[in-house]
């Protein structure tokens, strides 16, 4: 039967997939793989080692245009790469350099700035963090107060950022600051690049409810930032922030990593103590897999549309909402299916299948995913307005 719709990868894509899979098998370091298999998250040195390895292949910045060092892959290929990465048990790469400040730089920055900052991102050498949220500017980002005052050849930055993921790892921060108090909120915001080692900049840890250190507060006291670290013009910060929101979102749903989690859960089915528990767990698993299927094919549609040059607009927020909800549900299922096996918090020996041993930490960690990057409630407000005209 002949139909010109092809929901499977075509021959070329399959070959590509095979080659990526092969490479992953050979190159994902064993300690990385086993860390992910346990449901744990790599520390800085492990994460950076892995990202440098990808960088050396030119595979860290897969979404970048070729002229800036991207590999020239289609959206489908990028999708495949991400899928194989996850299935091979490698962690997702940190988004702040590659997916966030990178595209900002090649879109808005001067040639000097591009030359100075892009190579470090591409190689995995420079680690970035994102200075957006403030204690009183979370969902309502535009009300941010951190101030940058022009003072000759530099800005003096004062204020505070919060929820800064990986600030304690980062070399650089891209940061929204207020440079003008006299205009409409959104128009007085600028986009600055700040060296994390600048005097007056202090990073204080915030521990997450998984017991780990991911987040930080960052305090600025007269932090000197050279004028050449301003991206675009003064007042363009909000435009740049919005640009990022509509930038490539073909992996926003987290489909690849959900597959990996579901595979982990499957592998632990045999360790369940009774037939009844196994049967109910299988049904729950089936239901999650089916939801993943719906998410995945919706995701494919965005990927295919991107390859046709018609990227999804705000519709892709739906992927973010469904994807984060599903990540949470899978992690909750894992904890609940584990039952007693999920209870220990800091034991050395798992009391059952290793899959469940860190499950509750992951479950805790993932409560954040419907909050960060614009809570799902905020996403729905935006969708109601932009898509439904309400």
């Amino acid at each position, binding site marked *: *039967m*002949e*139909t*010109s*719709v*092809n*929901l*499977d*990868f*075509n021959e070329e*894509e399959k070959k590509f997939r095979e080659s990526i899979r092969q490479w992953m098998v050979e190159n994902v370091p064993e300690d990385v793989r086993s860390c992910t298999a346990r449901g744990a998250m790599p520390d800085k040195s492990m994460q950076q080692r892995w990202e440098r390895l990808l960088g050396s292949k030119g595979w860290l910045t897969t979404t970048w245009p070729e002229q800036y060092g991207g590999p020239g892959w289609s959206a*489908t290929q990028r999708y495949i790469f991400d*899928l*194989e990465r996850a*299935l091979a048990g490698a962690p997702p790469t940190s988004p702040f350099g590659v997916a966030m400040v990178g595209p900002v730089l090649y879109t808005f920055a001067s040639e000097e700035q591009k030359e100075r900052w892009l190579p470090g991102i591409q190689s995995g050498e420079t680690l970035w963090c994102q200075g957006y949220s403030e204690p009183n500017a979370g969902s309502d980002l535009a009300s941010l107060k951190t101030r940058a005052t022009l003072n000759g050849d530099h800005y003096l930055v004062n204020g505070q950022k919060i929820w800064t993921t990986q600030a304690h790892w980062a070399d650089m921060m891209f940061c929204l600051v207020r440079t003008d108090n006299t205009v409409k909120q959104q128009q007085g915001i600028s986009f600055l690049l700040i060296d994390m080692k600048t005097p007056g900049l202090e990073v204080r840890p915030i521990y997450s409810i998984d017991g780990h250190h991911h987040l930080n507060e960052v305090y600025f006291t007269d932090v000197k930032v050279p004028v050449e670290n301003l991206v675009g013009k003064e007042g363009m910060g909000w435009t740049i922030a919005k640009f990022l929101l509509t930038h490539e979102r073909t992996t926003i749903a987290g*489909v*690849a990593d959900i*597959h990996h989690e579901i595979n982990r859960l499957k592998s632990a089915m045999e360790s369940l103590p009774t037939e009844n528990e196994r049967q109910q767990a*299988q*049904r729950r*698993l*089936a*239901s999650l*897999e*089916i*939801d*993943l*299927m*719906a*998410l*995945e*094919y*919706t995701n*494919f*549609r965005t*990927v*295919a*549309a991107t*390859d*046709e040059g018609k990227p999804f607009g705000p*519709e892709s927020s*739906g992927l973010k*909402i*469904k994807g984060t909800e599903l990540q949470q549900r899978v992690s909750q299922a894992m904890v609940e299916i584990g039952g007693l096996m999920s209870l220990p918090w800091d034991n050395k020996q798992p009391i059952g299948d290793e899959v469940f041993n860190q499950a509750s930490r992951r479950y805790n960690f993932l409560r954040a995913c419907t909050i960060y990057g614009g809570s799902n*409630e905020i996403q*729905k*407000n935006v*969708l*109601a307005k932009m*898509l*439904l*005209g*309400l």
Partner: protein
Amino acid sequence: MDFKLPENTTMIADTARRYLKDNYSFDTYIAQLDESNHLDEGRWQAMTDLGWFGLPFAESVGGYGGTLLDVSAIVQEMGAALCLDPYVDLIVSPGKLLEHVNTSTSLSLLEKVIAGDARVACGFYDRHAGYNILKPSLRLNSGRLSGQKHIVSDGGCADTVLLSAMSGDELVIIVLPIEACDVERYRLLDGSRAASLTLDDVEISEEMILCRGEDAKQAVLAWYDYLCALDCARMYGASRQVFQSTLEYAQTRKQFGTAIGSFQVIQHYLVDLFIDLQQLESMLLMVSVKAESDCISERVRATAGAKAYYASQAVIIAQQGIQIHGGVGVTEELNIGHYFRLITHCSLSHGDREHHITRFSQVGDSAHGGI
């Protein structure tokens, strides 16, 4: 990957939408609900002329070689129009079964179906087997059939019926003039016409047995998956309309001096419906392609997954559509409640959610990593 609908499919969908818009209004539906024969000669002829009868079948058996994706496009539009014409029940459903049986007897009956000369219905469900189509409780003993078949969807007018029965341990498919049975006709939840057939010691000759054993099993399984996909298509068409109508209603209906769509809770309800609809669309595309795959496990994963998903998410769209409409949503005067009935109906025909969750959890992955 290439997710763009083929031009031909888009054309078929457009034509179907236009045809139904011009020829099948909500009033037509309401009138048809009360008729005992759902086959309207005028529209039946028009569907033949539009090529719908031959579309689902291979050219080698006298069809036009359309894909399930094409048929799904038509059925989607029929769902959106609430059209009760028994196109699926009297053409697609028996036709696909006959095509899968693939014997000279079955193919010559298929020819008649395509030509519009035979009105054949399918009887694969009985009380004690539930959704287990491979183990019907109807038994063929020494060439005689006694028992019942239910939910034989026939538009109120079939003259012939295809039945499943067990002959010893073997599944058999039998073709029978409907007058050999005692027929009780009724409406179903979606307004369509069906029958319960009582067979009282009916003599079955060898030539009435279309096929048996593994062949019968494979034919029934392929037929089942095909119809599961069409259930989804119909539910998608209905869900699409529920969403559209509800959105429009929220934009125009005023309470407390303002459109109800300005309330944040209603906005979030509608966004949820929109996102769900987007995912239902993806699942429909998926199942419309994969449900006619030759790989059984791929087929089962696709149809079980899609039907289970629709049985929860399309139902929620219909329920929320009613809730947002308020009082008017629970009346027969508005289409919303009828879509609710249609969606509930399709979520139960050919397997409910629990049944498909079971099927899904019993089939292996079709491939590493989903796709």
